[in-house]
């Protein structure tokens, strides 16, 4: 292995092109993963934050927050179901908003809620909101007032919360009366009365999904929180499409590493013959190939990561790229595994080298 690493140090140019190709592939993997994470996290934060085991929709809404309507009668029925510990109403309204201090119009999801959510304190006073950090990135500060929607409904920001967006719009968490006022002023065609919320966030134990839908006589459609996340439009399709592209790209990494190192091994056949003749084991020689592949993959990952971070800073703000620690870890591990597997393609050739070939011929 020492010999292999020495070769890397002394003849780095031999590995340059392979490293460049793997760097591009690692950049691709990070950008693809970053887009997937950005789309997922930016769409689902408001649901993931809910202090709930299940989310209850009206059955005619096809599990859409915006189309669901739950009134007091249904709510009382849900509250009476065995195993239900707590019930909180939630409503969401997607609008544009203008900061009174000036600046561009921002996209907001006005989220009315009753129960403190994960990372979101109890509802603020009427007319005020906890804003998602993404609004701070767009120049909104604590104490700013946002004029929401065509009706210019004023909502004052009193603090910030993290990872709470809904369908790529920045979360603006308000109490239910403020949400209703904004909804009715800005979307009179989707008017809600004082006893109506869009969905219920329910915490409890047992088979809540079946129990709630049975108790309401089919007037509700209840999903677990995870199911509710994937019921959002496009989330499942985005994830499956991006993952298919990511795993196909990993196959390409495997093929590129395999190709490169099988060519290198071919070139070194004579050298390996000599090394075997003087006692080097196949295992040792192969470990050297694997070590080189791993080093190349690690260098490619590091450079690719730096390029991905630079790309993240350079891309327009509307590109939902989000580079997470988890994505870097996944890409690193996947690249190293692909490099090891790819280099293993050379194993057969290394094994078949006959030490006797070193005697009388070096080619």
């Amino acid at each position: 292995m020492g010999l292999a690493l020495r070769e890397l140090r002394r003849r780095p140019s031999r590995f340059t092109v392979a490293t460049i190709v793997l760097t591009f592939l690692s950049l691709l993997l990070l950008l693809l993963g970053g887009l997937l994470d950005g789309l997922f996290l930016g769409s689902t934060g408001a649901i993931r934050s809910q202090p709930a085991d299940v989310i209850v929709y009206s059955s005619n809404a096809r599990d859409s927050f915006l189309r669901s309507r739950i009134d007091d009668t249904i709510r009382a029925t849900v509250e009476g179901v065995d195993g239900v510990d707590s019930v909180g109403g939630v409503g969401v309204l997607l609008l544009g908003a203008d900061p009174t201090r000036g600046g561009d119009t921002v996209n907001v999801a006005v989220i009315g809620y009753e129960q403190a959510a994960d990372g979101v304190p109890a509802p603020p006073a009427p007319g005020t909101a906890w804003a998602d950090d993404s609004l701070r990135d767009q120049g909104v500060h604590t104490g700013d007032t946002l004029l929401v929607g065509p009706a210019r409904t004023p909502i004052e920001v009193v603090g910030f919360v993290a990872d709470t967006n809904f369908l790529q719009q920045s979360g603006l968490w308000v109490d239910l009366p403020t949400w209703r006022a904004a909804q009715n002023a800005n979307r009179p065609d989707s008017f809600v009365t004082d006893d109506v919320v869009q969905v219920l966030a329910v915490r409890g134990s047992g088979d809540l999904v079946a129990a709630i839908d049975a108790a309401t006589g089919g007037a509700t459609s209840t999903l677990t929180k995870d199911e509710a996340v994937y019921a959002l439009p496009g989330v499942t399709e985005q994830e499956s499409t991006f993952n298919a592209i990511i795993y196909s790209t990993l196959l390409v990494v495997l093929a590129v590493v395999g190709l490169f190192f099988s060519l290198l091994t071919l070139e070194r056949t004579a050298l390996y013959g000599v090394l075997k003749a003087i006692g080097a084991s196949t295992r040792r020689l192969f470990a050297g190939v694997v070590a080189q592949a791993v080093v190349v993959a690690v260098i490619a990952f590091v450079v690719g990561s730096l390029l991905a971070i630079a790309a993240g800073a350079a891309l327009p703000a509307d590109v939902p790229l989000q580079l997470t620690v988890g994505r870097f870890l996944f890409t690193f591990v996947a690249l190293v595994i692909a490099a090891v597997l790819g280099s293993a393609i050379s194993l057969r050739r290394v094994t078949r080298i006959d030490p006797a070939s070193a005697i009388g011929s070096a080619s």
Partner: protein
Amino acid sequence: MAPDWHPVRLACDAEGVFLAVKEIRRAKTRFGLLAGAVGLLVYLILFQQALLGGLVEQFIGAVKHQSADVLVFNDQARKNLEGSIIFPEQLEAVGQVDGVDTAAPLGQDTFTVNADGVETDAAVFGYVLGGPGEPTTVTSGRLPSGPFEAVASSRNAADGFDIGDVVEVVPAPGTDPVSFNVVGLAREINYSVSPTLFTDFDSFVAAKRVVNPDAPAVLASVVAVKVAAGASAAGVADAITATVEGTEALTRQAAVDEAPGVSAVRSSFSVILLLFYLVVPLVTGLFFLIVTFQKAGALTLLRAIGSPAGPLVRALLVQVLAVVVVGGLIATLLFWLTSGATNSLGVTVQARPVLLTVGVVLVLAMLTSLAAVRRVLRIDPIAATTGAGVQV
């Protein structure tokens, strides 16, 4: 019998091809891996290009293929149809702007509908019959001529949206449903990847009321504008934005290009596709450069016994061509196999983009292989007599 590399045989073009093919046959694993990698990469390019085109078309096709020259949004909607409402006074004011021939309400919302006994989502557009906002790509049947008639997206015809089908809007509890009779089909009019119906504005309002019986008013989402003869759509759009408070007017094309998500999807995919287009020729170029290095000894010997450089270069280029063509075939096969599963996203196999992509990849691969060609051309036959470059 003369050996494969005999200089006489190499002297003509056919022998260059012969040498290339012979080498590929003797190193199937190496060339197979390369063709596989190129095939996968070209497949990913084809798939993502088709996905991008399909997604954009399916997300915003309804806006692209309707007749209004200009669409006027509420300026708070940030060009999002679903976030826009137009107040009656804004609608009236738009009609007064110079260059506007007709200004009519255009409504849009997504409903839960019952089609062919199955509940599904459907986007419904309501326009004033005969006015701007009607679908322009009717392929069969006719446009609506009365209440509760609709043109449906042809992509969803088999799902209960065919001519003669009745699509029922699922009402709020205690409200009677309304139904749309499909009288025509239009291509590429989907919105948000959902089945889409174009009906008259009053029928759209009726549908809104059965799902929101408490609604005090149902407003238009945008104003559909037909510009006067001789007026420019862009100029009229600018004039509307400048004079009608709280509005943002866009030409039809701008409304498509600047729709939320579309520009983000386009720029994201462009970066990714660019990287893929860079990786394919790099992989190919890398492979042939290394192979040429490895063959340096044999190539020097061939030059020394009289083989001109031409056939050797041609052999290399024939191998590049073979690898890209085989890779292209693998990619097309994979693309064809997977397009069925992603047809709902508008991913379809079309000969022209496939040929164009393979052609671009071939040109790029040839360009990066020039490094290997340069290496072949720089071989000095005299080196064979000194031992340099020849492994003994």
